């Protein structure tokens, strides 16, 4: 996994997490990896994103961890799912729904999305 390691000199750590590293984790383990990183002030980039159900749980767990003056929640961006590339009914029945989509997650008070379209996410990251 390519990983930009943290610094003690006020820099911003960016963790680029491969799909391979996440694929064997249970949903809650994935959410823990993300939130532990983000709560440390890191920017987490997932090569393959989360399933809709995991996204729903991520929102729910994030909410339970918000605390005044400590953690305000997350900013999350993914490329929009292609409208023309929806999984076929057969794929859905077989549980092969396509979820691979680059996902950027960071602390809400440090990351600001400047621009987003179908092929580009541009974010401004500030130090803690």
């Amino acid at each position: 996994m390519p990983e930009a390691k943290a610094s003690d000199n006020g820099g911003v750590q960016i963790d680029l997490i491969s799909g391979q590293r996440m694929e064997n984790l249970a949903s809650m383990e994935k959410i823990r990896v993300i939130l532990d990183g983000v709560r440390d002030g890191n920017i987490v980039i997932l090569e393959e994103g989360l399933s809709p159900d995991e996204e729903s749980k991520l929102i729910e767990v994030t909410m339970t961890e918000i605390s005044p003056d400590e953690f305000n929640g997350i900013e999350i961006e993914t490329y929009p799912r292609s409208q023309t590339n929806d999984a076929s009914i057969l794929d859905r029945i077989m549980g092969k729904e396509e979820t691979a989509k680059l996902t950027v997650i960071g602390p809400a008070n440090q990351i600001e999305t400047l621009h987003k379209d179908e092929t580009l996410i541009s974010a401004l990251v500030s130090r803690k």
Partner: protein
Amino acid sequence: MGLISGLKSSLQQVRESLFTEEEQKRIGIYGPPNAGKTTLANRIARDWTGDAVGPESHVPHETRRARRKENVEIERNGSSVNIDIVDTPGVTTKVDYEEFLDYEEFDQDEAVRRSREATEGVAEAMHWLREDVDGVIYVLDSTTDPFTQVNTMLIGIIESRDLPVLIFANKIDLDDASIKRIEDAFPQHETVPLSALEGENMDEVYDKIAEYFG
């Protein structure tokens, strides 16, 4: 023993199936904060039951608990559709108590309390979506950009659960409303324009509710 327990189990199954058939369909009203979800829930409830669901406000996160209004019977074309409407807190990925301090009616303690309740409310809304709703009305403010991550994620979550969904483009009474922007954002779903506050286009709203959730 085997016969009696078998009979009991059959009776239980019959009872459960009768119950299931009589169960109201629960329609969740979802969307980002300040889209007008409670105004819509109140409009529907007042039109068909005479009661309101909850207080409306310009302050985001006024609804911090999911509220259910049972037995809303909507009459269309000689037949009627009976649903429960569930007004849910606006979904977001972040809540900063300092944003409540922008409203002069709140001091620090009240802002912290509201933000804590708001986070609990969002978690509750997500739980309802995963476990307890049979259909979704997704409300968007047609004066704001619908291409947000929360909207994209929530529509994705709703689609993954195969729930019937209607998109409501609310606040069309305002000058800068754009229904087309919402239609373009979610072309795979039907968009119904309305003003819940002014009661504009409510006939089509009720036609579509009956068609989708009846």
